């Protein structure tokens, strides 16, 4: 994401443009250095920009796929951490499980934002997005699974009956040893 921003660059203070597009040599005070031909530059304007745009969109698509695959590493790391945390409820395992649940959820909420830099009419973002969502859902599932193994999900009968009050008895009886 940082790289993408660098390319788009909006808040920069100064810049040197190496790809000088001015084709009229008359406007130049300084003659071209010997051996330098402007032929390569003196191409059609549209071709140059198309080429550039192609490169950029290629690069964007590539980046988008990279970003989409990023949660996979996360997933692996999470899995490792969960395995390390064990199956008992304590501060470490609870922390890990909740971060494992939170990360995918927050990532899913920001799907649009994550892929915004690569938004382009030519770049097909559906694939990376789907991959990204799928991976994050996987992460979420992993977190839920962990929650279950910790026994924090109400999936057993015991979770539903543990607060059931005792049944009322219709009959009432009292008495005992005479006073």
């Amino acid at each position, binding site marked *: 994401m940082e790289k993408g921003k660098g390319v788009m660059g909006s808040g920069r203070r100064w810049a040197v443009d190496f790809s000088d597009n001015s084709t009229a040599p008359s406007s130049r005070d300084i003659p071209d250095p010997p051996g330098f031909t402007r032929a390569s530059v003196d191409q059609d304007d549209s071709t140059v920009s198309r080429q550039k745009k192609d490169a950029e969109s290629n690069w964007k698509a590539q980046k988008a796929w990279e970003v989409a695959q990023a949660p996979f590493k996360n997933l692996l790391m999470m899995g490792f951490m969960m395995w390390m945390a064990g199956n008992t409820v304590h501060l470490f395992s609870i922390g890990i499980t909740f971060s494992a649940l939170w990360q995918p959820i927050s990532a899913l909420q920001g799907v649009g934002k994550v892929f915004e830099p690569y938004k382009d009419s030519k770049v097909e973002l559906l694939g990376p997005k789907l991959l990204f969502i799928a991976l994050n859902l996987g992460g979420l599932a992993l977190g839920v699974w962990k929650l279950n193994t910790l026994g924090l999900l109400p999936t057993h009968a015991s979770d539903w009956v543990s607060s059931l009050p005792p049944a009322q*008895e219709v009959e009432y009886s009292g*008495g005992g040893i*005479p006073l």
Partner: protein
Amino acid sequence: MAIRSFFVPFLLFALCFNSSLTPVLSLYEDQVGLMDWHQQYIGKVKQAVFSTQKTGRRRVIVSTEENVIASLDLRHGEIFWRHLLGSNDVIDGIDIGLGKYVITLSSGGSILRSWNLPDGQMVWESFLQGPKHSKSLLLVPTNLKIEKDNVIVVFSNGRLHAVSCIDGEVLWNKDFEAESFEVQQVIQPPGSDLIYVVGFAASSQFEMYQINARNGELLKHESETFSSGFFREVSLVSSETVAALDSTGSILLTISFQNGEISFQQTPISNLVEDSSGPAVIIPSSVPGIFAIKTNAITIFIRVIGKGKLEVVETTNHETAVSNALPISEGQQAFALVQHAGSEIHLAVKLAHDWDGNLLKESIKMDQQRGLVHKVFINNYIRTDRSHGFRVLIVMEDHSLLLLQQGAVVWSREDGLASIIDVTASELPVERDGVSVAKVEHNLFEWLKGHMLKLKGTLMLASPEDVAAIQSMRLKSSEKSKMTRDHNGFRKLLIVLTRAGKLFALHTGDGRIVWSHLLRSLHKSEACKSPIGLNMYQWQVPHHHALDENPSVLVISRCGPSSGAPGVLSFVDAYTGKELNSLSLVHAVVQVIPLPYTDSTEQRLHLLIDSDKHAHLYPKSSEALGIFKREFSNIYWYSVEELDGIIKGHALKCKCTGEVADEFCFDTRDLWSVVFPSESEKIIATVTRKSNEVVHTQAKVIADQDVMYKYISRNLLFVATVAPKGSGEIGSVTPEESWLVVYLIDTVTGRILHRVTHHGAQGPVHAVFSENWVVYHYFNLRAHRYEMSVIEIYDQSRADNKDVWKLVLGKHNLTSPISLFSRPEVITKSQSYFFTHSVKAIAVTSTAKGITSKQLLIGTIGDQVLALDKRFLDPRRSVNPTQAEKEEGIIPLTDSLPIIPQSYVTHALRVEGLRGILTVPAKLESTTLVFAHGVDLFFTQLAPSRTYDSLTEDFSYALLLLTIVALVAAIFVTWRLSERKELQDKWR
């Protein structure tokens, strides 16, 4: 409160991590007395002996009906030392020997002990045996010496003993073997070596024995027959004259046995008093020359002049009590006379030979709630002007003890609280605007100062004075003794019924008496000769809509000791102690059944069963009748007939078919009976669940998320029977002939749900029933140890309810009402453990919602209360619990229950003569209030799973506040710093 609710989740969270540790409940030294209080009593004084020698502290030695010998400070009434003898070691007499030993005769005259007067250490003990049972008399003559040794004369078990005062050795003894001889008095005329033993034989013969005090030699034996017989009391008139009544109680006899000659002088009472009717009784006293008789509420004082001539000196119809004579100077004896007159008592000290002159005459205002004066003890002191001053110790009808001196009550002791019959708890009034009962609000500065001190304590900056100030502040916290309801429900009233028929309300905060009331209905009257208080029930517990009414309690009493005697009901306001109403019933009260229904004013319906098995409904209102009629067919009752070994179940039938139409009276019919074979089983204990116990859940979650359904029924009865042979003392039978059988019986249907036999076990059995389990304590003869067993009952018919979706959607019938006539399928789990102590009482903690785990409260033989986690009595304990079971909290099985010294609820204190333990839930779920009573009273708060729902009492709010302020300041400062830094960065 906001702070607390903020902290609750945090604490719960913290608790999660600590739950794997075994909680050890104990308190720090400086926490003693913060939430608990302990009061020491002695009981109703039977006999008092003064010890007012010039050296040493002035004290009075008393023996009481609770079997206590105590030495009290005469200045303040505090206890110097105290000994509680066993209940089978009743004190017959006390006296002081040689000015430094307290001599006590107890156990029907068979144990004579000597205690050191200053510190109460026992000096010696002698066992006195004799041929037959008889009255026991103790006499410590002041100047009777045998070989420089002071002698104690004891008549007990038909034998006269002379015992050395120094080492308790029996110097001589003399048997009185005459078959029917009944000793009345042992007289030692001062200055002589003679002992007279007088008594009756064959009810019409007067016998006199003259004995040489030096060697026990019988000098003379005379007997004389009086044809119309004697009434069994004599009053000593002089060292050689006694006064008695004939068997009809209408003729006075003065019997003189001067020089061994017995002579009777008869005087009909009608000659002395004109309007005497009915038999008279002699008031026992020992005033020389004077005795008193009582006929119909009239007390007559009679002086003996010369040879059998009698003269009435005073007739009074006021209630009167007379003390024994006190020698004050050579040949002069004084005695005290206390008479009631309205709200005052008149105290007169007179010389024995001069009735009309008074040494002292005082009127003292007396609290009406103390009743009549029962006993008077007199003592004198020499004033600075060498005249005699008198102090008088009086025992009142409510068993309180008061010292009167110079026309005022110097101190008083509420010793009625030593004999509590029943206890119940009541809420305090709700705090309303303008109803400030006690001014307790500190001003802000005080509050802040207190918290600053606490903060200093927390930060270890406090000086020793500060620490002392903190401690006294904690102990005297006015918050806990306020007279209004508190948020946590710690403040309550304990309503206590004592044997004297007095009700006390004790504040749980500091144990002070809020009000006390001597029940009018428990007064002796024409209709009710000897009323006995039996029990107490919560009659009206207003909440919700009836908050304007005060709660009230119902006191059940009975006229006379037999179960057929008519009952008396009194209704007492729990806030003020006023007797709202009292009903003298025509029927007896054999059983009281509080029903689970209340009327619109929150009065609980009670069913009283009389001796003819009729049920009477109270309150007698049409509304109550309407409610009762609706539930008529669902009400049952059962009776346990201990002597016959039968448990019977009854149902209500129809209106009474008596001559008087009473629509609140119902006939009953027998439904079922469980008959125990009398040759092999004898009922020794029955226990039911407390009717006000709250159970949170019916399910028990066990390892691997499995569920077991508890069998929770209000109508279960635990019955323990033993072999008739084994019902005596422990060790009186061999293990082969003794067994203990335990039953769980459904009291509606009579169905026996469980039965288990412990071979080689013996009573006494103490048991406690709660939720779905019962714990009982007995003796194992084979192992020679006490054992405790637990039985848990589970409902197997509900075990199939395991479908999660059904449970989620509520499609189950687990909470629908059930009938006990449907056949239950129960399984039981049980386990037994050794237990070191023998037990006086067992109770279980009870909390508001029943969520907190339970603790057993065991009153040990050492008069302490031990808290034992119920987890130790879990039948699912095994030697090697699995990992899952360990996580569940199951403790590995051991053969005996651990006694952790820190878990004594009473910490270093003892509740002498412990009889009962009451637990009352506080409003705060984690906490329960415990009240243990015996001769002493003890109260404390317990949190079986720690106080997980509130901050501890010593939490420093000042520290919290300070931290928050510091944090806010830090945030502000760092924010400003970061602002500045950013600005500088921008300028760069």
